[in-house]
Structure formats: structure tokens, C-alpha cells
């Protein structure tokens, strides 16, 4: 700071022109800093620019001999193809609805169950707490591919006995996503609950409030930021999940967005602009949600709450 001020006063005194001034302003560390920042920004943003811009290109622009860097006009061909009810790659609306049907219940149920569990872990004494916490932490260790085989075999067994379809059943997906997100949600919330002073709750208990009453009237209102971030995270995990959906879903009617995009990508005749249009539609809500609620979320991110 002092360096800049000194240089500014010096250059003001000398009445230098702009070029000389910038030449003076640019020292080696400043140059390295600016260059690195520029490199980071372009490498982060270019793929996103390429995704959005490609989605507005026409078929001829996409399959030309040279790439088109800026689409000549905002064409919606790709989006029309994506929502075309006649085409097998179309009807993307159904897939959006399927993703919502999976992600919203996952987020809601995860918040409710992990709130109850986290409260017990943070505030109450009970036997077997350490074992439970360690068992829950194990989830971090097991890869999804290890769990998918036994899950598939197990659910097929249970399914034939109880009478539900394992394949092409969005409820099965919700339950498996809950299993992978609940442990993380519980840890996040428990850590947050511990930061709320216990004295407030004790006062309410003495005044004759029940435990559940305390959770509902005292703890939850104080924990809104944590609840929001848990909801967003579980939503995002369910929204983005690929492997379980790939294994459990067979019918195009029930594909969630990631699986549908994968099938469009693997069409024999490549149609990258349609893939990019679908990707744009899938990415935008998540990025906007994230930007809007970033204040709550980065803390959770750095707490290691998103597995991935």
C-alpha cells in the first residue's frame, strides 16, 4: 500500500503521461500477479463460455471445418431439438422434472432427518455415540462403485419380496442419495449446533418446554444458515449424481438429466450443440443457486462437507 501511494505521489509530481505511469506502476511482482490472475480467470471461464456459446450455434456452425468462436446470432435450434416431443433425444422437459423429483425430496428429507440426528449428537449424552459417529464417518472411505454392486443385489432381493421395482424407480434413487448425503449433513449440522450456546436451550427447558419444543422453537431458528447450506448441498449432490442413476435407470422416460445428457452425447451422429444446450440448462440453476447463497455455502465447503 505504501509503495503505491509513494509512486502515485511521485508520478503526480512529474506530470507523466499514461503510458509512463503504467510502465512505472507495473513492477515484476505486479506483472506476475496480474498474469496469473488472468490465466486463472480465462482457464476457469473459457469452458463455461464455450458451453453456453456452443448451445446457441446452428448445426452448420457446429459441424464446420473451423470452430466458430462467436455464434453469428442467438439461435435456439439446439433448444428446440432438445424439447422436441417427436425426437428420441428430445423431451428434455421430462428429464428436468425427473431430476427435480429426485433432488427436492432428497434435500428435504435429508434436512429433517439430519437435524434430528445432529441435535442428539451435539446436545445429548447416549451410549454408543462414538461407535455411531465412527460408523457414519466410514462413509467417506467407501467408493460408490463398491457400494453399488451389493446395493443392487440387495435391493433386487428386497424388491422381489416386498414388490417394488428396483430399476426405474425414482424413490430408490432418493433413498440411496439419502444414504450418501445424510452422514455429511449430520456432521455439518452437529458442528453448527455446538456453536449455539446451550444456556439458551436450558433456559427454555427450565421454563417447561419439551426437547422437541426446544429444537423447534430455539435451535432451528438459530440454525437457519446451516439448514440452508445443508439443503443446497444435498440438492446439488442429488442433482449432479451420475453413477447410481446410470445403474438404476433404464427407461428414457425416467432418466434424470445427467443420464439423458450422457445418452445424447453417445448418439451415433454427434450433436454437440444439443449436448451443450442440455448441459447449460443443467448447470445454470446450480451456479445461480450457489452465487445467490454463497455467503452461507463457502463455510460449509471448506468444512469438507461436499464429498467429491
Amino acid at each position, binding site marked *: 500500500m505504501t509503495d503505491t501511494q509513494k509512486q502515485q505521489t511521485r508520478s503526480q509530481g512529474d506530470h507523466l503521461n499514461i503510458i509512463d505511469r503504467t510502465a512505472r506502476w507495473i513492477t515484476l*511482482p505486479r506483472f506476475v500477479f496480474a498474469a*496469473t*490472475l488472468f490465466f*486463472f*480467470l480465462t482457464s*476457469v471461464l*473459457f*469452458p*463455461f463460455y*464455450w458451453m453456453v456459446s456452443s448451445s446457441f450455434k446452428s448445426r452448420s456452425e457446429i459441424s*464446420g471445418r*473451423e*470452430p466458430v468462436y462467436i455464434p453469428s446470432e442467438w439461435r435456439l435450434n439446439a433448444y428446440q431439438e432438445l424439447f422436441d416431443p417427436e425426437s428420441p433425444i428430445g423431451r428434455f422437459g421430462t428429464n428436468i422434472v425427473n431430476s427435480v423429483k429426485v433432488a427436492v425430496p432428497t434435500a428435504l428429507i435429508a434436512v429433517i432427518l439430519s437435524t*434430528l*440426528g445432529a*441435535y*442428539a*449428537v451435539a446436545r*445429548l*449424552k*447416549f451410549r454408543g*455415540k462414538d461407535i*455411531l459417529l465412527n*460408523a457414519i464417518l*466410514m462413509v467417506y472411505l*467407501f*467408493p460408490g*462403485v*463398491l*457400494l453399488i*454392486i*451389493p446395493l*443392487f*443385489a*440387495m435391493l*433386487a*432381493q428386497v424388491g*422381489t419380496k416386498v414388490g417394488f421395482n428396483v430399476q426405474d424407480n425414482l424413490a430408490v434413487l432418493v*433413498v440411496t442419495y439419502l*444414504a450418501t448425503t*445424510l*452422514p455429511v449433513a449430520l456432521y455439518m449440522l452437529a458442528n453448527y449446533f455446538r456453536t449455539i450456546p446451550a444456556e439458551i436451550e436450558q433456559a427454555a427447558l427450565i421454563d417447561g418446554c419439551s426437547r422437541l419444543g426446544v429444537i423447534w422453537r430455539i435451535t432451528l431458528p438459530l440454525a437457519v444458515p446451516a439448514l440452508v447450506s445443508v439443503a443446497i448441498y444435498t440438492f446439488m449432490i442429488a442433482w*449432479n449424481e*451420475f*453413477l447410481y442413476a446410470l445403474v438404476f435407470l433404464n427407461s428414457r422416460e425416467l432418466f434424470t*438429466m*445427467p443420464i439423458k*445428457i*450422457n445418452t445424447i*452425447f453417445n448418439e451415433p451422429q454427434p450433436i*454437440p450443440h444439443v449436448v*451443450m444446450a442440455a*448441459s447449460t440448462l*443443467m*448447470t445454470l440453476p*446450480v*451456479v445461480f443457486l450457489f452465487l445467490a447463497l*454463497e455467503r452461507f455455502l463457502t463455510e460449509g*465447503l*471448506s468444512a469438507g462437507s461436499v464429498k467429491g
Partner: protein
Amino acid sequence: MTATTQSKQSSFAKRWRSLEAREGRLAWSLVLPTAIIVFGLIIFPAIFSVWISFHDVGLHNLNDVFNAPFVGFENYRKVFQDYAFKFQGWQSWGAAVTSVIYSFLATTLTIVVGLIASLLLNRPFRGRGLARSIFLFPYVAPIVSVAFVWRWILDPRPSGVLNDILMRLDLIDLPTAFLSTRGLAIVLVIIFEAWRYFPFAMLMILARLQAIDKTLYEAADVDGASAWDKFRFVTIPELRYVLGALFLLRLMWTFNKFDDIFLLTGGGFGTKVLPVLTYEFSFRLLDFGRGAATAMILLVILVIFMALYVGIVMRNVDEE
């Protein structure tokens, strides 16, 4: 006799009604739903997967899994003898070696890039908040979208944008099939990992950087330390714990990761890692026993590594 049972009963009843026990029961009823779901859908399947790896389970007997024939280590033998698994010289690494090398390099690169990004954002400049939000994009965006954008950027045709840029700059003469060239493919997958996951490392390092005591730097200034000295002797030692924990966490997740490589290369051209091999055995060949055996091998490698890491690296950190 009767008196003792009675007193036992009453002491049991007393305990049952005591405040502590009531608290315990309430606690268990609160965690029960979570515990059931986590046990039923994670812990039990994990144990069941050990069982499957010793049995012949395929699509034909999936509906009658518990009567599948026991085959001992047959599944493991098949995996170890598979050409996709075993190391056969530097031309063809096999999934086990590829997994280890890929995870190490990807984790290291991710943390180095994350460190640079966090150092950038640690100094004040106009638009820092915005830059931080933008840096988080790769991590927040769905894996399917970003993987396919990268494939589209790396398109092997001359119309692929990276091919076009490199040809315009005269760095290459002919369009390159980036993701279907052995050697190049794994390098690009590693770069992709660093691109996607550096924000996570950045956030964790940044939080620690901002907590470093400023007087340490002032003291170093008084001693006439250069910027590099300050980085080497103040910043890095202060970050040691974070970097150690980050490395372990990211290594574990990278080692277990399936989606990224499956979507980028499908596991071809020298990028077949153990999770992808597990998937192929299970859901392409429909040999669940062999798939489970591969997953167990993956888990064992991971656990051995973690034990070594915690035992050696973390202990050294403590002693210093």
C-alpha cells in the same frame, strides 16, 4: 432369591426411568432414522460386498443371491490375471498402477494449483470477491456438463477449439486426438482433475492463510527476509497441517472417483482406473463377484496407504 430379583428389577426400573436413560432413549429415537439408512444402505452393503467377492454372483442368480456358490479366491485370481488389471511394462500399466499414479499426480497438482489460487486471493485487490466466486465455478458445476464441455473443447477434429488454437499458433501441424492418445489422455485427465477440484483446496488453504498471525511476517521483515523466504519459512510451515489433511482427503476421493474418467475417456487409452474396471466387470460383463473383488482390492490399497500416511507423515508432522 426372590428378594434379589426384585431388587434387580427395581434397580432396572429405576435406571429405565432415570433422567440419563430418558435422555439416551430420546437421543436414539432422534438418530435412529439416520442410523438405519446409513447402516442399511452403506455399512451392511459394504460388508455384503466382501461376501459377494467370494461367491459366483452374476445376472443369472441375482434374484437368489444368498444361494450363490462359494468360489474362494477365484474372483480375486481372475482379477489379478486380467490384462486390464495387471502391470505389463510401461506401455500398459494396468488399472492398479494407473490408479495409484493418477491419484498421486492429480492430488498433488490439485493442491499446488489450489495453493497458487489461494495466494492470489489472499492479497487485496479490486474485485477479489467476484474472482473468488468465479474460481468456485468448476467445483460447483455438475460433473456431466463440465466433462462433456472438456471433451467438446478437446474434440479430435480440426474443428475442435483446442486443435484450432494450437494449429493457429503453429504448435502442432495436424489435429490431435487428445483423449484417445495413450499417455496424453492420462495427462489431460490429471489436468482436468486439477481444474475441477482446485477450488476445494483453495478454500481450505485460504481459510488457514487468513488466520496466520501477521506479526510472524513483520518479524521476518525485521530480519530482512525476502518474499520467497517469507513464503518458505513462514507460510508453508503454517500451512503444513492443512496441506497434510487436504492431501489425504483429496487422495482418497480421487482414488475412489468413477465419474470423471468414465465420462472423459470411458477408461480407454491408458486411463482405466480401478473404479472404472469395477464398473466394467459388474455392469458390462455382469460378473458381480469379480466386480466386488476388484472393489475390495481398491479398498485394501486405499486402507494400506492411509495407514502408512497417518503413521509416517502425520507422526512426523507432530514431532517437528
